[in-house]
């Protein structure tokens, strides 16, 4: 039996289970969540097996079913590239489902619908990576947007959530519009809407390729969250339930990357300009993403902006890969794409983990504002530890997985920099600079996120009363946390598994990649060695520390506060104060607004206050004016309908006369 049939059956199972869950939800049955979660888990498992098979064997399968709609055929396929994206989708959604079982309120009517939306979202994401025909792809793409729209609107009592949901679906729709334009443009020149007919896109007239690339960049970039198309992301991700945020941020935005990579596979040798554009967008997204993340005090918003940053890193990787293809440097191409794609996987793991952790915090305290949290590590040890590992990983610190993919990109950049190719060197050095800056700032952002939320003393009553998450939530986070060092240690084997993926992207047979693979695997092994050495030294030092004579001589006291005897939790540094110097330093990029009401007089009566916000510049300077201009234009048009029938008749008559004159002239 074709393994795709198996996979599609999994998708159907998910969807049916989701709607069954909604059905039970309406009756407030206690089976609601079991049905939703277990059907999803089963479906994911069913989809996971063929994906792993394909990745393992490198053999792609295709399935074309008749689909009686006018432009469509139900053409699905599973090649290594699809499988590579399908695996994190299945895995993260699987864990998210179990997390969601405890996270969602157990017997509310909305819960059933949330499961329906969640299962539909997962199924449509899988269909997106499977689709091999434009109409099918667009349909899945739109269903994905619609399903997640309902999840974003889960807490629809709040005005801000409704706004976020609106913004999200509009962005998704604009993205779909660009993707549709892209597909139909390709369809116009190739006469087919099948992906198979598009590969080897060199038959396109010159210049059209670039148009197509830019359509893809915008269309898929909106979904992926490239700067400056990211504005929906920090609104929508915090609004959704946390396991959904994890899935949206961890894998859904990656479908945008998938689309972009898929479009790149249609072309043999991309022009240099594509690589430059991708690298430029990547660096901008990365640096601005992390800066805005740093300026946020809402934990989930912070994570959402970090998705922009990580998508930027992925884009840098893809950009380097493109540059490698354009200049014929196969090692650069290999490392660039490998780094970018591996970061896709890594980001799914640690961003999923971090969102789940943030969800646990939210679940336990009801607070998102980091300035009111603190000291949660004692109350929530598992959440705290896993969040800590996730933080290390997202900062790209060794010996965790984020480091491996960032290292590959660094390697690509340095490799390109020493190549003495004028088109390469500047962009590669920009990558080095950007990556270094991103790394440093990310560390600042996550020491802030972790340190302020989990360390120190609770800053509010809710935070003090926090409790650890339930077993399923803990299990989901723990599994993801284990993956972080695992992927790093198994990096070279994973890279070998990725070889068929890369050969799909680079248009070469897997055998050609051997030399690049060997070189990469060599230094990945060295990194593993350093990691092992690191672990050994750490254990040694720990043992030494234990065996020292004073080890048992431990006293407890209050924190040293320069002799101040009764420190209170409010004296601690807050998230905002931690980030303030960097915010001030990059004020020219962030454009944050602050509002200060200083205390007046010797005995100030009025309450002094200081507020500082960092609204998104792109929104303020770009989208808002455009929107206003459009609205202004539309308002002008509205004058047409002023209620006077005489003028209405005049429109009719004038149209007639104008047409007559124009046509009989």
């Amino acid at each position, binding site marked *: 039996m074709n393994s795709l049939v198996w996979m599609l059956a999994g998708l159907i199972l998910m969807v049916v289970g989701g709607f069954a869950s909604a059905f039970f939800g*309406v009756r407030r049955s206690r089976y609601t969540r079991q049905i939703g979660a277990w059907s999803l888990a089963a479906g994911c498992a069913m989809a996971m097996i063929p994906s792993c098979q394909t990745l393992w064997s490198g053999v792609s399968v295709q399935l074309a079913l008749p*689909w*009686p*709609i*006018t*432009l469509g055929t139900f053409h699905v396929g599973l090649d290594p590239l699809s499988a590579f994206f399908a695996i994190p989708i299945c895995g993260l959604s699987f864990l998210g489902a179990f997390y969601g079982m405890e996270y969602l309120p157990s017997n509310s009517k909305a819960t059933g619908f949330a499961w329906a939306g969640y299962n539909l979202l997962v199924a449509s994401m899988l269909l997106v990576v499977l689709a091999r025909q434009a*109409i099918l792809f*667009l*349909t899945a*793409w*739109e*269903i994905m947007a*619609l399903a997640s729209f309902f999840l974003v*609107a889960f807490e*629809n*009592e709040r*005005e801000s959530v*409704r706004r976020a*949901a*609106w913004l999200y*679906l*509009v962005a998704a*729709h*604009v993205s779909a*519009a660009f993707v*549709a*334009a892209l597909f*139909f*443009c390709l*369809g*116009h020149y190739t006469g087919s*809407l099948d992906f198979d007919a598009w590969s080897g896109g060199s038959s396109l007239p010159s210049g059209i390729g670039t148009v197509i690339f830019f359509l893809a960049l915008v269309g898929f970039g909106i979904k992926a969250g490239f700067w400056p198309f990211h504005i929906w992301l920090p609104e929508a991700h915090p609004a959704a339930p946390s396991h959904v945020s994890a899935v949206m941020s961890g894998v859904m935005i990656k479908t945008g990357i998938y689309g972009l990579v898929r479009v790149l596979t249609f072309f043999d040798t991309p022009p240099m300009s594509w690589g430059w554009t991708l690298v430029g967008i990547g660096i901008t997204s990365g640096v601005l993403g992390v800066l805005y993340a740093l300026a946020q005090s809402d934990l989930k918003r912070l994570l959402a902006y970090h998705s922009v940053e990580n998508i930027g890193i992925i884009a840098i990787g893809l950009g380097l890969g493109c540059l490698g293809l354009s200049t014929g440097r196969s090692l650069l191409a290999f490392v660039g794409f490998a780094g970018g794609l591996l970061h896709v996987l890594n980001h799914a793991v640690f961003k999923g983990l971090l969102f789940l952790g943030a969800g646990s915090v939210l679940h336990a305290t009801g607070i998102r504002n980091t300035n009111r949290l603190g000291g949660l590590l004692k109350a929530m040890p598992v959440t705290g530890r896993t969040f800590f590992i996730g933080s290390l990983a997202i900062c790209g610190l060794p010996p965790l997985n984020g480091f491996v993919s960032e290292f590959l990109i660094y390697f690509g950049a340095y490799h390109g920099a020493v190549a003495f190719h004028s088109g390469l060197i500047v962009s590669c050095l920009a990558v080095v600079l950007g990556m270094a800056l991103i790394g440093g700032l990310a560390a600042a952002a996550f020491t802030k996120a972790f340190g302020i939320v989990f360390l120190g003393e609770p800053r509010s009553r809710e935070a003090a009363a926090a409790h650890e998450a339930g077993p399923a939530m803990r299990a989901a986070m723990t599994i993801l946390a284990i993956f972080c060092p695992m992927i790093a240690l198994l990096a070279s084997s994973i890279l070998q598994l990725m070889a068929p993926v890369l050969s799909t992207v680079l248009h070469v047979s897997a055998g050609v990649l051997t030399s690049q693979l060997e070189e990469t695997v060599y230094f990945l092994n060295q990194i593993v060695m350093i990691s092992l050495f690191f672990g050994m030294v750490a254990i040694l030092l720990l043992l030494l520390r234990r065996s020292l004579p004073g080890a048992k001589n431990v006293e407890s006291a209050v924190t040293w506060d320069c002799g101040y005897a009764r420190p209170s939790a409010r004296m601690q540094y807050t998230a905002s104060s931690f980030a303030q110097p960097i915010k001030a330093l990059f004020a020219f990029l962030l454009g944050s607004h602050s509002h200060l009401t200083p205390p007046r007089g010797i005995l100030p009566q009025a309450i002094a206050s200081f507020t500082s916000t960092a609204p998104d510049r792109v929104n303020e300077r770009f989208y808002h004016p455009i929107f206003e201009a*459009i*609205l202004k*234009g*539309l*308002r002008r*048009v*509205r004058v*047409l*309908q002023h209620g006077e*029938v005489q003028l*209405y*008749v005049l*429109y*009719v*008559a004038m*149209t*007639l006369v104008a*047409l*007559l004159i124009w*046509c*009989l002239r």
Partner: protein
Amino acid sequence: MGQTLLPILVALPFAAAVVCLLLPTSQSVLQFVRLGVLGLVFPFALAICKVLSHGPLEAAGQWLRMDALSAYHLAVMMLVFVGGSCFSPVYFRKDIEEDHFSISRARRFGSLWFGALGAMTLVLSSNNLGILWVGVEASTLLTAFLICIHRTPASLEAMWKYLIICSVGVAFAFMGTLLAGASASGRLPATEALLWTHMMEIAPRLDPMLIKAGFIFLLVGYGTKAGLAPMHSWLPDAHSQAPAPVSALFSGFLLNSAFYCVLRYIPIVETALGHSGWSLRLLVFFGLLSILVSSAFMVMQKDLKRLLAYSTVEHIGIMAVGVGLGSAGAAASLFHLLNHSLGKTLAFLSAGRVGQLAGTNEIARLGGLLRGSFVWGVGLFWALLILSGVAPFAVFFSELQTLKAAADQGSWWTMGLFLFGVGVVFLAILRHAIHLAWAPSNRDVSANSSSWLEKIVVLCPLALLFMLGIWMPESLQRVIREAAAIIVMGGRQ
């Protein structure tokens, strides 16, 4: 067979209209409307099946004729009428209880309802372009009084505007018909002039200048009735003031029947002008204009029914663009016609019921429709989403087909403007839909329950639209292809 069937089809509704005038109570009129329309489905279905299986039917010395294009329109019309008729008793129940729906009003409603059905059947089944026009004129005059079943100042104003503007428009259409006839003068015997089939036969020899001028008159004239911008201005007023079933009828089919008249002329004009695409470009222009103009009014719209009315302008625009894009586009346009009629009927019926219960049509004062299990609220929300074009519902696919047609023609500007307009409409409708669905409101109607009949009226169109989205029957595709071929080249391959 056709010799008797077609006249009967036209005559039956008028007979039913007369019957309505004789019924004793309001309730019985409404029941008769429901059962009568359901009963009429059978002869209509019979005719449609005949046409689709055996080719065109002709009657009355070729004055009446029904081919695939008209049969397809007829089917859509029946769907709209069935929906509206089933809904009428539900909608007017409250009026009857409050004594706002006297027997004379009920009789007037019933007879005009059937009269409109008859007039539109005449439009769809006539082969004579003059009769075609007579049908449109008759439907205009009959429906005018449907707007003000409830005689309020606002509804009278709406009716007056409808009458004045559409009369002017239809008058222009008449001039167009005359010019079209004049262009054939001397080339056809006088007794056969204005017969569509004959016109098609001699189309290459028609006078190009006269047929051009005639088409302009026709486009502006029928376009006024069809609601193409900038001649659409009567439309929001009439739709917002009419009772819900009537609004549904207006949006669901009355406009399309006028647009159908334009479609009839397209193959003639195009053949006469040597397939230069002149008339198609005009259609694309007006279609895009309609999309853009209506989007402007939807963004900041305050009234729910006006919002839906502008959405109709937009969708007529989409259909016009589609037809203007050649055969693939014409097929997309016809598919869109069906989808839009279904969706818009549902939207107007739901909006009517919601507005009736909440006592207001103002969007800002409505809200929370999805909180309870109020089936009309669900229907309204989904109808809005579907009309704005979300997947996997059929409207999404017909819009995609239109886009594809534009791309295949290489008319990138059309594609861009189309996407822009549809995008603006989307964000406007979505904003309103989200507000209606979840915003807190003191006029919460979501606690109301609904009967099983109401549930069916809501769920059937939704299910149908969903089904047409993911699975389109081969037979429907074939019908649409045939009908599109008639638009593009008068039915000859």
